[in-house]
């Protein structure tokens, strides 16, 4: 009898617990609290938090290669690059490229913000990260969860947990991160600029856009294919108007299902071993840096463009080039309406906001081409 008890104790995970595991439990509990009580991005944070918890319970072998339940999710979903493109499929079915088509110059604002990524890349290298790690950290500034996960899983999978959590955390914090930069880099006069109404966009134009974009980007930057093809297909579902069932499935059921696996898999990479290192603190710091610099880059790009434009754009919309959709656009609208009550920048800001999504994918693809 005593032997059976002894056996049970020794085979339990409890004896294999390390101090690190306990710390990760704490991390998990904090995140669960934030998700459930504070409702802070619960759709992602809850599965991530739970993933962290279960993977730090030893001897469960949930992440054991070829055997663990969660390992299978992770391997087929993330390592094999299925989940991020599927999220993009859903995203495309929800995105409205109208404001972008109405004002294609905003594509340059989407590009401008990505310049911030490369500055962060440089900074990360200075901090001592190797090139692949630096690229994965830099892409956080793209403010795009799936792209961050896609790139990091290919270039620096050991950093996946930290970069993904950073990306999602800072996206939620955009309303706090962006305004100071926006006020710093723009004059009161610039913020008051009212933008003229967006020209109407016809249905045919909305249908041609995803097709042209998919073809162009896949021809010029092939590594972008998995992400951009899905994004544009989803958008085509939406804009064609003839496949409402597919469009709805992509933006609802599919998104929800994939999000479950995504959160769980990402959380499950955060074992005490991989997560509890000073590198992670640097990543959180550099992630914030990335957001700040990308915001600045977008604002500066807008100001530069204004030098050449008769019909000035309000430079605030440059900040929306940081593709946290639609948080950054909302933030731009708020700051704009504080400067001038009659300014309704929301739709204008959506142009650079969605352009930024495309821009981040292109930036990731180029990084992959150079470093993959």
């Amino acid at each position, binding site marked *: 009898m005593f032997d059976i008890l002894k056996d049970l104790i020794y085979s339990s995970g409890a004896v294999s617990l390390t101090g690190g595991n306990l710390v990760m439990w704490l991390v998990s509990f904090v995140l669960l609290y934030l998700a459930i009580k504070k409702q802070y991005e619960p759709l992602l944070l809850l599965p991530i938090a739970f993933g962290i918890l279960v993977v730090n319970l030893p001897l469960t072998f949930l992440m054991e290669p070829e055997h663990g339940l969660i390992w299978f999710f992770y391997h087929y979903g993330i390592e094999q690059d299925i989940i991020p493109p599927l999220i993009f499929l859903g995203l495309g079915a929800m995105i409205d490229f109208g404001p*972008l*088509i109405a*004002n*294609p*110059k905003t*594509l*340059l604002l*989407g*590009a401008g913000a*990505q*310049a911030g*990524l*490369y500055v962060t*890349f*440089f900074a990360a*290298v200075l901090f001592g990260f*190797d*090139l692949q790690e630096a*690229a994965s950290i830099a892409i956080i500034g793209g403010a795009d969860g799936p792209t961050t996960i896609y790139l990091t899983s290919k270039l620096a999978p050991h950093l996946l947990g930290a970069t993904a959590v950073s990306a999602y955390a800072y996206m939620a914090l955009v309303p706090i991160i962006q305004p100071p930069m926006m006020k710093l880099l723009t004059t009161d006069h610039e913020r008051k600029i009212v933008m003229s109404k967006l*020209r*109407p*966009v*016809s249905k*045919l*134009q909305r249908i*041609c*856009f995803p097709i*042209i*974009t998919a073809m*162009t*980007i896949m021809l*010029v*930057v092939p590594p972008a294919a998995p992400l951009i093809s899905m994004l544009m297909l989803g958008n085509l579902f939406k804009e064609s108007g003839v496949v409402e069932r597919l469009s709805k499935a992509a933006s609802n059921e599919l998104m929800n299902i994939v999000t479950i696996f995504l959160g769980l898999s990402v959380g499950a990479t955060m074992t005490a071993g991989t997560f509890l290192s000073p590198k992670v603190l640097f990543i959180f710091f550099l992630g914030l840096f990335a957001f700040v610099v990308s915001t600045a880059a977008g604002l500066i790009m807008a100001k530069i*463009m204004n*030098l*050449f*434009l*008769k*019909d000035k754009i309000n430079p605030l919309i440059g900040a929306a080039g940081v593709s946290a959709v639609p948080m950054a656009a909302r933030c731009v609208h708020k700051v704009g309406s504080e400067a001038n009550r009659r300014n309704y920048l929301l739709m204008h800001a959506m142009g650079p906001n969605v*352009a930024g999504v*495309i*821009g981040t994918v*292109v*930036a990731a693809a*180029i*990084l992959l081409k*150079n*470093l993959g």
Partner: protein
Amino acid sequence: METDWSKVFEVFGSGIVGVFLVMFLLQVLTQFSTRVIDVVENLGNGKGSAPGADTPAPATKD
């Protein structure tokens, strides 16, 4: 671990230039196709009803 600085600069430079070039290309193609579609759609109604064209793209960085 030795940092290959030439590679760093290569990534940095080709990255920024690359993103701008691609996005600019996309902008041009979008403007072009949009204009073409405007014309095509208005052939039915008479050209006068075409919505205003965009202001021309600014001279961008090299």
